[in-house]
């Protein structure tokens, strides 16, 4: 048998029965388009999220927050937010080996930041002098505040580029006197431009002051919202997280029945959060695509069975002319696979184009996911062969005499 000619003729059959072909590939096109779209979006967002998180969170970081935080969600309502103290974090630093530095954070509600007759409303953040390293913040003009300034509740502030722009326009803010509400501050430096963080807040609208200054002079509280710990050896991060938990429980005098009044976020958990956020892409949408592909396969079975009935005389003729049952089988399997592959390629182009359009409209980078090409080609062939088996067997078993009469 000349396989090449059979394959060639399958293209002819499909191109000459356009309406049939259209309906047969529709399901596959939709399925593969949806699959490649979601896969591509999922991969792209995951990659970008991971990269952004990497900037904020290294494998040797542990995040401690006051109160209970549900993974991937907001704070739980009953959480006692006044329990975490700077002393707790200092104790971690002093008592647990392997912890090298920390930054703490606490944030005010929006306050007026005033320079001369200009005024910007933004939340004020507090941190330690090590925040420069732990939070990967760098200062483009001036310098970061010092440990001494942190300890002495000095009235110094670091401002984001947008704040600088709004208050000072093009003049140099370093050394200038600004006010936060009624409290005067000296601008110590301008923070590097950082854009929008994964939660949607604009990091360039940041004002950062020493944590003690924030607690004593702006908020009058004795607790912090959280802290970020840096450990020496990234492989020990999870181990140290366990030690931190028991230390904090001890310091907060929690008995065995009580749940933690703080939460830890470790690199392993961050990975899981990202996975969870992507679940809609990696689980739910592929499931829908899978159903579309299944329906597409069933449509191929049904229409091909119809087509076998319509082509009884062709099949009989081919048999009379010397086609063996397996040759007929081969022909119909090829037709089904070519069809499905055709649908797959169309679906793939549609899906990836849509993904690309979507990503670029959001100003995000589009990653070409090579895996989807494999999926868009292999899946349809498998579906085609599976869907073709029934019609092909029916065709192969036709009796040429009945077929020709």
């Amino acid at each position: 048998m000349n396989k090449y000619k059979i394959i060639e003729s399958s293209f002819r059959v499909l191109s000459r029965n356009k309406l049939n072909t259209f309906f047969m590939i529709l399901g596959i096109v939709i399925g593969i388009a949806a699959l490649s779209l979601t896969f591509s979006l999922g991969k792209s967002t995951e990659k970008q999220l991971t990269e952004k998180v990497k900037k904020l969170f290294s494998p040797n970081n542990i995040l401690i927050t006051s109160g209970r935080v549900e993974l991937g969600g907001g704070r739980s309502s009953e959480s006692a937010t006044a329990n975490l103290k700077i002393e707790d974090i200092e104790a971690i630093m002093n008592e647990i080996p392997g912890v090298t530095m920390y930054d703490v954070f606490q944030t005010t509600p929006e306050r007026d930041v005033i320079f001369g007759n200009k005024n910007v409303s933004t939340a004020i953040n507090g941190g330690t002098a090590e925040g420069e390293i732990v939070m990967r913040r760098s200062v483009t003009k001036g310098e970061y505040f010092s440990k001494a300034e942190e300890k002495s509740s000095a009235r110094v502030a670091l401002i984001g580029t947008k704040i600088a722009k709004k208050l000072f326009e093009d003049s140099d803010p370093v050394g200038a006197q600004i006010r936060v509400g009624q409290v005067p501050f000296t601008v110590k430096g301008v923070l590097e431009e950082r854009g929008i963080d994964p939660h949607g807040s604009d990091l360039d609208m940041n004002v950062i002051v020493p944590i003690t200054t924030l607690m004593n002079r702006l908020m009058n509280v004795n607790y912090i919202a959280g802290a970020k710990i840096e450990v020496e050896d990234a492989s020990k991060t999870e181990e140290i997280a366990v030690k931190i938990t028991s230390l904090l429980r001890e310091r907060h005098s929690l008995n065995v029945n009580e749940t933690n009044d703080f939460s830890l976020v470790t690199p392993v958990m961050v990975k899981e959060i990202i996975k969870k956020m992507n679940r809609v892409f990696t689980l739910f949408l592929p499931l829908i695509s899978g159903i579309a592909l299944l329906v597409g396969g069933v449509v191929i079975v049904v229409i091909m069975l119809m087509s076998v009935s319509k082509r009884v005389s062709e099949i009989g003729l081919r048999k009379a002319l010397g086609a063996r049952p397996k040759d007929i089988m081969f022909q119909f399997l090829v037709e089904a696979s070519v069809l499905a592959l055709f649908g797959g390629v169309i679906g793939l182009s549609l899906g990836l184009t849509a993904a690309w359009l979507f990503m670029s409209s959001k100003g995000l980078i589009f990653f070409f996911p090579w895996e989807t090409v494999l999926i868009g080609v292999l899946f349809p062939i498998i579906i085609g062969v599976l869907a073709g088996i029934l019609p092909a067997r029916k065709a192969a078993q036709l009796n040429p005499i009945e077929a020709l009469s």
Partner: protein
Amino acid sequence: MIQLRNVSKIYGKDGGQQVNALDSANLNINKGEFVAIIGASGSGKSTMMNILGMLDRPTSGEYYLDDKEVSTLNDDELANIRNKKIGFVFQKFHLLPKTTAIENVELPLIYSDRKDIRKFAVEALAKVGLSNRGKHRTNELSGGQQQRVAIARALVNEPEVILGDEPTGNLDSKSGLEIVGVFQELNRSGKTIILITHSSEVAQHANRIIRIHDGKIVEDYKVEKPLDAVAELADLKNKKVNINTEVHKS
């Protein structure tokens, strides 16, 4: 070359109503013969055609093709023999729709091991006088031309036997005669022709006539002076001219 020994074909299940479509048929056909098998519908001639063409196996008896017993071969072996040794021409042409003439002629070659498929198909089309119609789709051709394409398809694998099943049945008398002429020409070039027909007029073009009735061969005789389709066509043309001139006169 073809030898049937006591070949019977019984349709219907054991115990149920059985039909002896073919009843102990004995037949010898030699290479180069032009045989017409005639009979009324239901006489068993279609069954004879199916068995000779190896589309069906006899219930009992033996079928020798080139001294080889073929009635016991499996489906794949039968397909192979049909492909190499038998060329089929059907009443309803059985050309693939929406497909060009040349692609139809290529069809048997697809199931053979031969290379240069296109070249053989072109040659076969030339033999039936349709060289210039190769690229035409079959639905663009007249009935007579379609049947010629079918004959080219039957010829392309250079089989020993051409089996025609009422090949003129769907054609007007002139196209029918042309097709019979093609068969006669093929026979003169050495092909063995077996024509199944209900028309005794068509049968008169063969060298030998076998009549089947109720599944039995009831007559088997040589035709002393077979009709010549080409000559008849020439006569027909003349007559037409005469009629035309007469009409013109009056």
